[in-house]
């Protein structure tokens, strides 16, 4: 079948019904076209067919015979790609090819498009990282000028483009599904279609004989080591393959391995498994009921873990208060919905196992895979691919154990790419919450007491449930001084997909409850919502709910003050139709960076080769947030060379020391500090040898180090085991102190702070919400790269909008991207970022974490704005039009 691809004549041999996306990727090896859903729901596979955009996953190749196809590889490094880089429009990069192709069609007929034209043209491509703002900017301003490369010592604070961005805009970046070794076998996971069922697997030998191209079946008995994994040592409870009972819909019971073709056409209904459906408990209410079965044997009462923080005299605190408000809020499961479904391959090399694929935590993966295979950790190598979004879910193992077990037994490379439905059904989610909160204040509006009770649905296995249970009571006071405080959390096991880590570990749910209640309390006092928050904002020297006192760096008041001009303007009355009500709402966040009272080290190595290459072993996984750039900026300034002179080696566990997991907003803070220490240590080595002044200018090039008037020839020096003539390797572990039985202690060395202001319109006849503008002030301590900071703010807000207005994962029901809705281009308001820099005592250059903070205030600020507009408080998320209208009608009835 003849066609033209990127101007070249090509001849396809695949069947005519083959999806164009598969033909491009598998037959022509053009992997720049990404597959996110195979259903036209995400637009990641957008290509141009005779100049018109199409989802390549929906086009049979028979329809493109004789046509001219353009893929991202056919863009010639044009201005659009450069504009994406310079505007920071690509974060993880998985949607970037689709965005570029949709924009290419638009710019061909509309060279200077309006904002609305860009949104209409690109509206069919989903992005989960950027919040779309910088993509719109890039398409509207392709002529943007280059930012000059910062000189030695000037990298920190510079608005440089991503150092790893080139491959993302060229389509050459390799994600989990983009690299499959020759002669790989492929793997299909057999999963439970029931929320709870006992099962038996019949004759797999006969099954294999009857299915050409299938070579092996693996079940629990084939796991060489431990048939269990988990992320917290005391809670390793999830089997690779269930043994006799599947306890959530989507749980793996077996894997089938075969040729690519056989797996593609394999009908899982033919697999010989018999299911006996059992009663399932899908809510904490059902699981905590006295009659409920045990979700896991060995966890009686179905309670996984509880968390508790208490301070002051809670009963007296309420007794002495002038105003008290009690409220209850619930939130559903939220799906991460990264555009890259989990994918990778495993291969056995002698008696070692190599795993390639997307992950947020390579060293944790390595440990868990070693246990599953019964190998030493050093005999497992994790080679992370680019990660097409993670947001917490790719901290856990997903596809890796299956392909590791299969590749170990078969001694052949084994690859897998999750389908969208499989990814959504089986990987972790944000915990549903059911929170009752009581907050009191005195006559002047000073908060006196907060009592918080949160029940979290943690699903069938532990995952990060204990972390959520611990983080929530530490944070539920918000960034407010609260003399009397009690917060209790409980993670309840249910027959649902495991709930785990998702940007904020339970804190976003908690802050919805707190911040909406604070608006009601402020009203009781008769205070303006902003003034009320400022009055109560935590200050330097005041203890947090865990009794920790910071002498510097508490930046919440500065964030709130920064919103004041927008607040005053937004409160002005506006002319509009009667049924459209304008509302404005505000909410804050604080969030501790790094593990809660646990060791949390990062190690960064920098080496100089005999040729004078300066190599940064950057193990902090970049899931789009920008650690490849930020860590390098910090390292470059510490060493004293221009940032673009550093060469990066990625997070391959054989090559690069452990920089910890990308979670808990820790990489800029923890790995950044390690990079700073490592850069400084390397510089000290050079200074010691040359005996020059501390601030001497350093140049490393062409096999020579030049510093002040001295120089060192590198070629003659001995190299160490890593091939370096000079090398530093430094570790940073944040200083924390354990929490006692009352939750008192120093859980984090650093908190970051933020406040957001939402302006919106509510259509009171339809219950629809139109966001107009969000002003976001975030205290990052020091913006190492302001463009990346803005990108995090915009992207976090987008996820907060989704949580507030549309996202609702229902196991077995919304396992696709057209029933599970995430925001599109058209759902985003204008976003104004205000970067606040209140220097922290521990962070590198005073920097604080940001990644999770940014989504926390958005949802409560939206709910507060809806209430401000029409008097209706939506307490059960998401605030879809039917719920908003019902809340309005309830208010009208009163």
């Amino acid at each position: 079948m003849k066609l033209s691809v990127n101007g070249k004549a090509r001849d396809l041999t695949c069947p005519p019904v083959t999806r164009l996306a598969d033909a491009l990727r598998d037959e022509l090896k053009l992997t720049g076209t990404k597959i996110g859903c195979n259903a036209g729901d995400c637009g990641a596979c957008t290509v141009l067919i005779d100049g018109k955009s199409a989802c390549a996953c929906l086009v049979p190749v028979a329809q493109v015979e004789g046509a001219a196809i353009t893929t991202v590889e056919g863009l010639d490094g044009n201005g659009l790609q450069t504009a994406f880089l310079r505007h920071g429009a690509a974060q993880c990069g998985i949607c970037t090819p689709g965005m570029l192709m949709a924009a290419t069609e638009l710019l061909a007929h509309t060279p200077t498009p309006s904002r609305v034209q860009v949104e209409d043209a690109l509206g069919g491509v989903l992005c989960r990282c950027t919040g779309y703002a910088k993509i719109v900017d890039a398409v509207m301003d392709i002529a943007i000028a280059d930012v000059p490369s910062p000189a030695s010592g000037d990298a920190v604070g510079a608005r440089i483009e991503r150092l790893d961005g080139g491959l993302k805009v060229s389509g050459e970046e390799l994600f989990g599904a983009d690299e499959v070794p020759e002669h790989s076998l492929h793997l299909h996971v057999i999963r439970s279609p029931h929320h709870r069922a006992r099962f038996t697997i019949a004759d797999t030998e006969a099954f294999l004989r009857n299915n050409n191209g299938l070579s092996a079946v693996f079940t629990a008995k084939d796991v060489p080591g431990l048939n269990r994994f988990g992320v917290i040592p005391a809670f390793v409870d999830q089997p690779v393959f269930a043994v006799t009972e599947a306890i959530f819909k989507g749980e793996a019971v077996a894997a089938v391995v075969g040729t690519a073709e056989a797996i593609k056409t394999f009908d899982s209904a033919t697999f010989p498994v018999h299911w006996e459906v059992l009663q399932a408990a899908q809510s904490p209410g059902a699981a905590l009921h006295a009659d409920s079965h045990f979700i896991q044997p060995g966890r009686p009462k179905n309670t996984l873990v509880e968390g508790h923080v208490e301070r002051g005299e809670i009963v007296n605190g309420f007794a002495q208060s002038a105003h008290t408000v009690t409220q209850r809020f619930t939130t559903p499961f939220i799906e991460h919905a990264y555009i890259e479904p989990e994918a990778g391959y495993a291969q056995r090399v002698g008696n070692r196992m190599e795993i390639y694929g997307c992950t947020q935590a390579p060293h944790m993966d390595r440990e868990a895979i070693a246990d599953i295979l019964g190998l030493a950790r050093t005999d497992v190598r994790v080679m992370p691919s680019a990660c097409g979004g993670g947001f917490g879910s790719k901290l856990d193992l997903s596809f890796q154990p299956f392909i590791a077990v299969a590749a170990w037994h078969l001694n052949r490379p084994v690859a897998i790419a999750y389908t969208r439905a499989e990814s959504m059904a089986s990987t972790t989610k944000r915990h549903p919450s059911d929170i009752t909160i009581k907050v009191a204040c005195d006559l002047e509006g000073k908060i006196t007491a907060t009592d918080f009770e949160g029940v979290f649905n943690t699903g069938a296995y532990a995952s990060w449930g204990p972390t959520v249970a611990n983080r929530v009571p530490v944070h539920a006071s918000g960034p407010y001084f609260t003399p009397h405080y009690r917060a209790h959390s409980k993670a309840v096991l249910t027959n649902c997909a495991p709930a785990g880590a998702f940007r904020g570990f339970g804190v976003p749910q908690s802050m919805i409850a707190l911040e909406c209640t604070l608006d009601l309390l402020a009203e009781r006092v008769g205070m303006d919502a902003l003034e009320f928050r400022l009055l109560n904002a935590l200050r330097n020297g005041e203890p947090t709910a865990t009794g920790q006192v910071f002498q510097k760096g508490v930046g919440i008041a500065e964030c709130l003050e920064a919103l004041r001009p927008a607040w005053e303007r937004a409160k002005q009355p506006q002319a509009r139709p009667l049924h459209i009500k304008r509302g404005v709402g505000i909410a804050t966040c604080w969030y501790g960076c790094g593990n809660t009272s646990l060791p949390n080290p990062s190690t960064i190595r920098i080496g100089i080769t005999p040729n004078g290459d300066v190599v940064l072993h950057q193990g902090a996984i970049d899931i789009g947030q920008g650690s490849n750039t930020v860590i390098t900026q910090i390292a470059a300034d510490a060493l004293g060379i221009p940032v673009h002179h550093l060469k990066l080696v990625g997070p391959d566990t054989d090559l690069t020391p452990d920089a910890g997991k990308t979670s808990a907003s820790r990489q800029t803070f923890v790995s950044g500090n390690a990079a700073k220490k490592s850069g400084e240590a390397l510089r000290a080595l050079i200074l010691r040898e040359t005996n020059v002044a501390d601030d001497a200018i350093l140049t490393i090039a062409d096999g020579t180090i030049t510093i002040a008037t001295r120089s060192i020839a590198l070629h003659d020096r001995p190299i160490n085991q890593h091939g370096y003539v000079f090398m530093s390797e430094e570790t940073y572990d944040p200083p924390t102190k354990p929490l006692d039985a009352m939750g008192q202690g120093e859980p984090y060395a650093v908190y970051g702070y933020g406040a957001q202001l939402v302006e919106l319109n509510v259509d009171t006849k339809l219950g629809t919400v139109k966001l107009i503008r969000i002003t976001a002030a975030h205290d990052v301590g020091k913006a190492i790269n302001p463009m990346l900071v803005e990108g995090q703010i915009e992207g976090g807000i987008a996820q907060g909008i989704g949580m507030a207005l549309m996202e609702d994962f229902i196991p077995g029901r919304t396992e696709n991207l057209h029933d599970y809705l995430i925001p599109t281009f058209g759902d985003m308001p204008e976003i104004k970022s205000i970067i606040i820099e209140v220097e922290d005592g521990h962070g590198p250059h005073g920097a604080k974490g940001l990644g999770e903070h940014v989504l926390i205030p958005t949802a409560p600020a939206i709910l507060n704005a809806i209430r401000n507009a029409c008097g209706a408080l939506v307490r059960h998320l998401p605030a879809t039009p039917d719920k908003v209208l019902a809340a309005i009608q309830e208010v009208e009835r009163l």
Partner: protein
Amino acid sequence: MDYHQPTTLAEALQLAAEKPCLMLSGGTDVFPAHAAKQISAPVLDLSRVEGFRRIEETADEWLIAAGATWTDVVEAKLPPAFNALQQAARDVGSIQIQNRASIIGNLCNASPAADGAPPLMVLDAEITLATRFTTRRLALDQFILGNRRTARGSDEIAVSLHMPKSSVNGRSVFLKLGARKYLVISIAMVAARVVVDAGGRISDCAVAVGSCAPVAKRLRRLEQSLIGAQAAAPVTITNAMLDGLSPIDDVRATAAYRLSAVKELVARALAGAMA
């Protein structure tokens, strides 16, 4: 496997008569229904049938042929009675979908949320179904029988849509209500077409509602009540005027909300069509 790509209607009808085939035009519903799996059924790909992209005016009707895409409709020069259909075309999925998906395919897929149904119903559209030997024409409410169910026999091909000139009058409006802007399946949608006479009275009117019953519905009782009314007069929609709607609770909204929203959408659509 069998994959047929006829270039003439006669050839296509011959193939359809020989064995049951999966009919494929733009592919935007067929592929999602197969998730990541390869399609194994015989496929009859209609995308290369000559004349299937036509949108044209004849003496007494407008015709949209089977392969015409949403983008074709957006780009076609059509009278204002087609405004609703053109707006629906812009609201379907995304540009990527609009560029490939056929309007007839949208009807044949028979989703209760098919964006094409209400705007075509207010134009009194009929669909032509052909076999090798027969041709029949059905009104849309006779063609779409239920959720994912149509009157099309396995050997029949839906070849064209026909909008009688007598109904291509006045102006129409389409309102789609969803929980987000793009790539959204509607919670409810309304198409309204109104003809206002020289005296400022409504001389003809058609209103259709989608996503509120297994099949999109015309609101005939409402329409009759409006004929002869002053166009400027405010319209109050009563529950009795919504008979035939049977919305359900689903992930997108509650049934009660749908009914409430439809009243508002109908009033706004009528106001828009008369503005």
